[in-house]
């Protein structure tokens, strides 16, 4: 039962990747990538948790041990990167929608 967060996180990652690989709607592909990115962020935060720990901030901190700060910093970085990637991908989807009139990835010209 102790590993429940890790299992949940792995399920989330797999859900995201499955959506990205199997879905036809391009918006759903973007959502899939975003979901798996969130899953990995959650994994990082879960790795840094210490039983009963408090946030690693000394301002008026209660006397308890602190959780690990690095995963939180990494998560902050990775969230912003994920945001940028999502914005970029969505703009491509917008362009393709304007061009082909559909978000279905089967209606495309390139065959590669």
């Amino acid at each position: 039962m102790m590993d429940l967060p890790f299992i949940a996180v792995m399920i989330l990652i797999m859900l995201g990747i499955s959506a990205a690989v199997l879905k036809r709607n391009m918006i759903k592909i973007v959502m899939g990538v975003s979901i798996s990115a969130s899953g990995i962020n959650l994994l990082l935060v879960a790795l840094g948790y210490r039983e009963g720990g408090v946030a690693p901030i000394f301002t008026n901190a209660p006397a308890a041990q602190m959780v690990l700060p690095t995963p939180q910093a990494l998560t902050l970085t990775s969230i912003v990167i994920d945001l940028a990637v999502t914005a970029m991908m969505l703009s491509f989807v917008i362009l393709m929608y304007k061009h082909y009139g559909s978000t279905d990835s089967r209606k495309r010209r390139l065959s590669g």
Partner: protein
Amino acid sequence: MMAFLLQHAPPLVIALPLVAAFAMPMVSRLGARAVKAWALLSLLATESLVLLLGRDVMSGNPHVYALGAAIPSLTTPAGYPIRIIIEVDAMSAFMAMICASISVLVCMYSLQYVRKKGGQDKYYTLLLLMTAGMMGLVCTGDLFSMFVFLELLSVSSGALIAFYARRGESSEAAFKFMVVSSIGALMVLLAAGIFYGQYNMLNLAAIGGMLRFGFLDKVALVLLVAAFAMKCGAVPMHMWVSDAYGEAPAPVSAFLVVASQASLYALFRVCFTLFGVAAATEIMGWALVVLGMLTMFIGVTMAIPQKDIKRLMSYHAVSQTGYMLLGVGVCLAVLGNAAALGSFGITAMQGGLFHVVNHAMYKGLLFLAAGAIIYRTGTRDLNKLGGLAHRMPLTAIFFLIGAFSISGLPPFNGFASKLMIYESVFRFNPLLSVIAMLTSILTLASFMKVFHSAFLGPELPEYRGVREMPPAMWISMGILAVFIMLFGIFPDLVVQYLVGPASQALLDRIGYLGGVL
């Protein structure tokens, strides 16, 4: 001053193009000329800094730089690395030199190639950011930084692929590229997370030093290898390459080749430095060899029937990546076997790495030549082209140099590196060598077809008004062509001064770890 620059060169080669890109919104207010001059100047500055750094590193003096520490060499204040550490050994310097040189040439070529009104400043911003991403990817010694640089590289290349956004195909190619590369980058992040959970470290050298090679490490290894193989366009995931290279503007395609090679570098770094002999190198090496063979063969067979000149070249780029994987994979497979390593393993790796620099040059030249054709004729359909040699003799010559080089004909550089690969791979497994040679012949056939249909034959009436390309374009192509010839005529010198130290550095796992710990 010089010593100061040299000391701080490792972060500066990353920060210089980055800051130049940040300043671009300000520079763009001064007009289009200022944008171009600024981009070219900052890339030239980066290039000279990289050459300065590279000369020092190649003479056996790897640079380790702890960002933000009290002194640059203070990597482990408490016995373990706590800050981001940039580690430039000969292999990193080798890759950095390739990236910086090609970036300058690509920028020079773009000065006249990119004519789109508006968006020019963004184009150069993204070019600078892409350079920074590559520099960082090849120089950093930190797994999480690697992820960040990879994302910087993929976001900027994705945007550049969609430069001609009004055509739906280019945004489609960019979308495909972004999906593949962001999934790849997420796999790298997952691997970094797994390592972090186990060892509480993110530094490559520190992880390498603590590696126990348990189950989780194997998971991380598979994730990293899959991610970087995906990003460098090895076969099961090669479908994005043809679209992306084919739809991007020609200079960006030439630059994307280098971007894939930066991923290839990361793959080699993970296999050799992070895991090294501890990993089941024989299996890993064979995996790379099989991947390389498949990439090589499938790439070339898919290239032959193509009608679009740039898509054809993209499939050849896939195919050539196979040679590098083959050469380095053979070395990885015999890493645990000192006798075999000494007799042909090192040569195989040197061949693979030599092929990296050669590929960057001749593929760049070919893409730029294709760009020149598109620039003047406006079409990329091989069936419509013909007789261009009458009107564009210089382009024809450059194209021919690139074509001979990619098919491994002497005295061009492709021959030198392919010969090293054939020789050493033959002693590893003769069959592989034969397949590699066969691929080379198919490449030659394919390029002769292209040359014939685009340049030879009677002059077509619709291309009567076509002129030779403008100076900035042929100067940059000329520089590449000259270097291709030089590398082909003096391969020994290149191997001795560039490739040799790089391959030694890649093999010297202890040295890399010792640089930090």
